[in-house]
C-alpha cells in the first residue's frame, strides 16, 4: 500500500526539529532500523535548514513544503521552497562549498544527502525556488534476520 503526507510550515529554525519528528514518525510505519531513521532525520535537517537559511534568508514569511511517500520499503522525500533559488547547481553540490561562510556553514549539506540517500535530485530556478527530491530504500534487516 502507498501512504502519503504533505506538510507546510513557517520558515523558522525552531521548526527544523518539528520536521525531523514528523518525517521520522511517518517513516516509522516502515519499521526502519534506528540508524536508518537517524540518516533520514539528518537529511531532513539539512534540506529544511537550507530552505530556511539559503532559500528564504531566514525570512519568516516564507513557507517550507515537505512531502513524504511510502511504498513498500521505499521512502520518497521532497523538500521545496519558493525562495531565491540556486544559480550554479554544480558549484552548490561540491563538498565544502558554501555561499554563507560567515554563518559557519559547513558546505556539506548536499554531500550528506548524497551519502545517506540512494537518489538525490535537485531542481532550482533563481527567484522561483528549489526542490530537493530524495529516495531511500530501507534494508529490511529484520526480515533477513528472521
Amino acid at each position, binding site marked *: 500500500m502507498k501512504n502519503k503526507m504533505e506538510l507546510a510550515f513557517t520558515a523558522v529554525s525552531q521548526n527544523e526539529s518539528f520536521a525531523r*519528528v514528523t518525517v521520522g*514518525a511517518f517513516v*516509522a510505519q516502515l519499521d526502519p532500523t534506528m540508524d536508518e531513521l537517524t540518516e533520514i532525520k539528518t537529511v531532513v535537517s539539512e534540506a529544511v535548514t537550507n530552505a530556511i537559511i539559503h532559500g528564504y534568508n531566514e525570512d519568516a514569511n516564507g513557507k517550507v513544503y515537505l512531502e513524504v511517500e511510502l511504498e513498500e520499503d521505499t521512502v520518497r522525500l521532497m523538500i521545496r521552497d519558493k525562495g531565491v533559488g540556486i544559480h550554479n547547481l554544480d558549484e552548490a553540490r561540491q563538498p565544502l562549498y558554501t555561499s554563507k561562510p560567515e554563518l559557519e556553514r559547513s558546505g556539506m549539506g548536499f554531500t550528506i544527502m548524497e551519502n545517506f540517500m540512494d537518489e538525490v535530485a535537485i531542481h532550482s530556478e533563481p527567484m522561483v525556488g528549489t526542490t530537493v527530491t530524495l529516495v531511500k530504500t530501507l534494508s529490511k534487516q529484520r526480515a533477513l534476520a528472521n
Partner: protein
Amino acid sequence: IGEIQRFLRDDGTVKVSRSIKESANKIRKMKEELSKTLGRTPTVNEIAEKLDLTPEEVVFAQEASRQLTSIHETVYE
C-alpha cells in the same frame, strides 16, 4: 541554571520536558541492549514493543530529548 532546575522540578505540573527525558533514557538503554543481543541495530518497532510505546512516540521522545540536550549545552557553555 536556575531556570533548568525549575524546568525539571517535580511539582505536580510535570512538563513534557521531564517525562520525555525519562523516555529518551529508556530508549537509549534499550537500543544498546538490543544491539548486543541482536548483533545489529534494532528497528524502531523492536524498541517500541519492548518499552510499550508506539513507534511514533519513540521518534518523538528521541528528538525532544536531543533538543533539550542542546538547550542544556547552550546554558552551560
